[in-house]
């Protein structure tokens, strides 16, 4: 058995107490500093929210008093801008926020962009996008050369799209392959119409994750003009693309053309046959019955179940009405 001297245990315990005491003091100090910051922000809001209303509605111009002097007041200004940007549109409010942020808030965010703290950098990137601070574009570009996290990279793409939409896809097509599908969809939704059209035109050159996201977004936008484009994608050798295309066409909410249904039912992939069976709910009863009889003995249980559910629906009076409509 190893003998530990009593003094060593004593010093160990004392050290632990010391660490605990230091941490407690630190926590209290941090909390106190946070509370002081919040009080300062509240007092700024109380003092200036009425004046901000006048400024943002164009009734008066922003005075020096509104310029935040420290982080607490900056947080208050951010809160005010957030409340306006998320709830109010038009009337040049966004432009006034942008103008003020470019002149008076940019120094704060420039400093934050250089921070070693990831959350500070991320917050700065979010605010640059929210407030449309064009004056920080140079600083953001310098950031691109550094080693960044995936979240930071995505935020940089959003900022690039916001400030330089022209040629966005040519510049970034190769780099966007690292995005998650959710991020890709978000990017497509935020694209101005002409950039979105360019992206659709270069579909073949896009990374698979972008192709999948783009098909989903086309389905969500329910733009019937894209039906022909989606139909052409059914020739793809990638079954995932074909499945997503069928899902997008189904999301259009139209009576699916027979040629698309035929292709879906002839597919060796059960998911495609399943989506075809689901589309039958918008096909007139007699035609749906013809397809249903063909698919009744499908090897996939899910396809057979979908066909069975369709037959049940058609037998009910509401179902008949729905199909006739």
């Amino acid at each position, binding site marked *: 058995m190893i003998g530990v001297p009593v003094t060593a245990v004593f010093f160990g315990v004392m050290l632990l107490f010391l660490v605990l005491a230091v941490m407690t003091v630190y926590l209290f100090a941090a909390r106190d500093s946070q509370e002081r910051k919040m009080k300062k922000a509240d007092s700024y*809001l109380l003092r200036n*929210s*009425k004046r901000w*209303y006048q400024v943002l*509605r164009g009734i008066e111009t922003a005075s020096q008093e509104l310029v935040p002097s420290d982080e607490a007041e900056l947080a208050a200004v951010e*809160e*005010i801008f*957030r*409340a*306006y*940007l*998320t*709830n*109010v*549109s*038009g*009337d040049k*409010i966004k432009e006034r926020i942008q103008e003020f942020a470019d002149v008076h808030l940019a120094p704060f965010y420039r400093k934050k962009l250089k921070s070693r703290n990831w959350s500070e950098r991320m917050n700065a990137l979010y605010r640059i996008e929210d407030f449309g601070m064009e004056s920080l574009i140079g600083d953001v570009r310098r950031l691109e050369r550094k080693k960044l996290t995936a979240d930071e990279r995505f935020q940089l793409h959003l900022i690039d799209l916001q400030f330089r939409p022209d040629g966005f896809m040519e510049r970034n097509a190769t780099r966007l392959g690292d995005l998650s599908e959710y991020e890709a969809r978000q990017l497509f939704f935020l694209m101005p119409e002409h950039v979105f059209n360019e992206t659709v035109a270069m579909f073949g050159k896009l990374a698979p994750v972008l192709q999948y996201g783009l098909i989903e977004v086309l389905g969500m936008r329910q733009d019937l003009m894209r039906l022909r484009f989606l139909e052409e994608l059914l020739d793809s050798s990638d079954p995932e693309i074909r499945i997503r295309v069928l899902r997008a066409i189904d999301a259009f909410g139209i009576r699916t053309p027979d040629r698309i249904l035929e292709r879906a039912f002839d597919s060796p992939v059960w998911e495609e046959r399943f989506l075809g069976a689901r589309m039958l709910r918008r096909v007139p009863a007699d035609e749906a019955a013809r397809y249903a009889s063909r698919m009744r003995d499908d090897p996939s249980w899910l396809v057979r179940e979908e066909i069975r559910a369709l037959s049940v629906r058609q037998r009910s009076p509401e179902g008949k009405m729905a199909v006739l409509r």
Partner: protein
Amino acid sequence: MVPNKAGTQAVLKEPYIQYVFDLLKANALRGRRVMVMVLIRAESETASETAFRLQSLVRSTDVLFETDRQDERGVLLPMSGADEARSFLNRLFRETGEIKAAVLEIFHPDTELRASIEDMQSAIDREEGAITFMAPVSQRPEEEVKVSVLDPDPLFRDVLGMALGQLDTPAVRLEVKTFGDGRSFLQSGWTASAHSHLVVMNDLLPRQNGLDVLHTLRSLPNDGKFTILMMTRRNSEEDMTYAYESGADGYLIKPFNLRLFEAQVKRLLTRLWS
């Protein structure tokens, strides 16, 4: 309609016209409406000829009366304003020759029949034009309208409060209060009064949802005093239909233009004095 034995509109005399005037004025004021009195003087024809022409033009709800002058007839047009009176006189002028008229909008309880007729008679004597639109006896009585803003975002509540506070609403005094959730609004006692009440409310609220609050307000016995403007972030046709079916008077989709909000509120407040 006050028909005579021939089935046409009777021409009322004193003191009956005083009684009818008071009754119509009380009705108009209670319903926050306007009534118009028109005095017509036709010097080139007899009083009975003027009365005959008027009888063919007035609606069944209008009231004809005579004044102390033989060449004068008066008409009370309930539920009408100056525009309706102008149309009425245009129809009359197409058919008659030399006539003069004075028009007075009645929307204040202090407007008296006798004094008004005297004012209108001196205006007809004084003015050169065929039609004289009289200045109202006094300004429209100011009405207190309660306004409640319900939104979970305190800063946005203040923004709406300030927008409402700076709104130019003639004859209406707005008493604005803001609430962060539905329950505190319903439990505040702020709804328990006979005042007209404009509620500007987000559909999603903590503790008690906006649509719940809408249902509660519409199930109150005096729900007619509430004008409810809903706000939402979800641009869903289904939600909007549901809100309208549940009794909302207007719908705003966030983010919305503050000028659109102000215009909607003004429009809704104008309806109080329709």
